[in-house]
């Protein structure tokens, strides 16, 4: 095997593989039956196209290094049009460029998976991990009244697992699925357990494959006849409502007797978890609520968790974006305290402990 692979594929002897987040997500896509990847180099996820350029052709798939992020997402659009599972990955500035294409995917009801290894912004920003694309990911990003399912993993294993299921979810709802990870998850190496490779994929009667033996198919998001686009939007709305009902995912830790609920996602939740473990050992009743889907957001579940709590703490690697969703869920009107590090800042567990304990007796509300 090529020495540039950092791991050896030996299915007989090994069960777990040591992989970077990029590599794990790439393997997950391959195992989920992804046959097409188009990408463009951007730090901190350059390993993704590099890895795919070798692995995907080995699996009979197509890898294309596109001339731009715009072209890459439109290639993914083309792959989806003809019924193949397709993926693109990038980091924040590149994801901004893909928004037009994501809007078209949503409008045309085409499945696709898009991975964002979030880095600091706005503008060119920097190359360090961030969660500053939360609004972009959960509030549409592109033009029009649409939604994308958004998963936020906190470990390389979960990045693998969520990427693996994303293709099923995208196909099930004929909707683009976004994975919002960050620069840490892109580059960190952790052990990963693989799932079975999917061989049977859903049949797509709507796909464009040439009209042999059937009426011609067309894929479009343009509806000029008065009232038809409105009807199309209502159809999408019903789908989004169904997704909100069925696809919410979250995790909770130490929440049963918690007076203080910390809400955090992704890498930031992982750091918060360390802080909470330390505080628990000191007898402080903290719990962690971690949304795994950022859209649909687990409003009802969070509302339930805070029923018996006294305070809510929101910790993000941005200046308070998920905070808006927590406010929506906080119908009990508990005090909410926010701690955020923007522009690629990553908090330490100690920093978070200081913040959490400083508000136990009240303090400034956000």
């Amino acid at each position, binding site marked *: 095997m090529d020495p540039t692979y950092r791991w050896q594929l030996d299915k007989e002897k090994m069960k777990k593989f040591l992989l970077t987040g990029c590599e794990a997500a790439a393997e997950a896509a391959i195992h989920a039956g992804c046959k097409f990847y188009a990408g463009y180099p951007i730090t901190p996820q350059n390993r993704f196209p590099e890895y795919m350029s070798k692995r995907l052709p080995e699996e009979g798939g197509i890898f294309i290094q596109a001339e731009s992020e715009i072209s890459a997402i439109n290639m993914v659009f083309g792959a989806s049009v003809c019924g193949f599972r397709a993926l693109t990955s990038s980091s924040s500035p590149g994801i901004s460029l893909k928004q037009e294409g994501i809007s078209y995917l949503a409008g*045309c009801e085409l499945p696709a998976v898009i991975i964002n290894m979030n880095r600091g912004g706005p503008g060119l920003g920097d190359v360090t991990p961030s969660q500053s694309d939360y609004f972009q990911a959960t509030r549409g990003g592109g033009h029009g009244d649409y939604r994308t399912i958004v998963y936020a993993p906190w470990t390389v294993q979960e990045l693998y697992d969520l990427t693996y299921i994303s293709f099923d979810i995208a196909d099930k709802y004929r909707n683009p699925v976004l994975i919002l990870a960050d620069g840490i998850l892109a580059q960190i190496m952790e052990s990963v357990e693989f799932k079975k490779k999917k061989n049977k994929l859903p049949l797509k009667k709507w796909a464009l494959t040439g009209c042999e033996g059937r009426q011609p198919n*067309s894929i479009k998001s343009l509806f000029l006849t008065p009232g038809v686009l409105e009807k199309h939007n209502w159809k999408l709305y019903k789908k989004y409502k169904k997704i909100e009902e069925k696809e919410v995912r979250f995790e909770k830790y130490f929440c049963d007797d918690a007076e203080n609920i910390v809400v955090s996602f992704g890498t930031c939740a992982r750091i918060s978890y360390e802080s909470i473990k330390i505080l628990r050992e000191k007898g402080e009743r903290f719990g962690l609520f971690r949304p795994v889907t950022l859209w649909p957001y687990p409003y009802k579940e969070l509302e339930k968790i805070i029923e018996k709590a006294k305070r809510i703490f929101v910790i993000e690697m941005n200046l308070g974006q998920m905070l808006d969703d927590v406010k929506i869920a906080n119908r009990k009107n508990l005090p909410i305290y926010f701690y955020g590090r923007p522009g690629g800042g990553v908090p330490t567990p100690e920093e978070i402990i200081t913040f959490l304990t400083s508000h136990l007796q009240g303090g400034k509300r956000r």
Partner: protein
Amino acid sequence: MEVVYKKPESLKEEITTYCPGCGHGIIHRLIAEVIDEFNIREKTIGIAPVGCAVLAYNFFNFDVTEAAHGRAPAVATAIKRLLPDRIVFTYQGDGDLAAIGTAEIIHAAARGENITVIFVNNAVYGMTKGQMAPTTLPGMKTTTTVQGRDTNYHGYPLKVCEILSQIDGTSYIERTSIDSIQGIIKTKSAIKKAFQYQIENKGFSLIEILSPCPVNWKMEPIGAMKWIKEVMSKYFVPGVYKDKGGK
């Protein structure tokens, strides 16, 4: 009785949404005739542009997808790579291909994608009612160049065939015109050759077709045809710009 002329099977029974005297109808028909003649209707996938031909799926009787403005070559790239035995073509206007989609067409050409591109050049943005296009002639009046295109201010038109023929990845590049019966016949044989090349896996081909837009040119249909012959084709000179398969 022998049938000498009929609606191609590759066209649907549909009321046209194109303006009186527009060239798109002629070009649609030529493509449909060629697809019928090759008997590839059931394995053809078309990619429609954003612009006047955005509704191409209403007229073509085979699989057609929409693409975002200018992105048809990227969409076509993925489809052809994944389904190499299908026939994949893009149908693009001058704004779509030579302005917003310049990167996509140049790089699809550079990669030598085995696709066919039908490029309709009518020197204006037709769908949006006649603004300056990347192919608007110097001095030509449009709604955004009411005094005429001043090259010192607005810059020069792009000559797509001349540019693409310089790219190593391209196989067949020809510019034709539908200003006359001879031009239409020539255009059809160019389209046919471009599809033939794709069938034979010869790589990237593009046919640029000079086409009338009488409504936005503010001309009578016949006057528009005359203008193509006398003015437009002097700047955009018809001819074979590249033919890797030719002698």
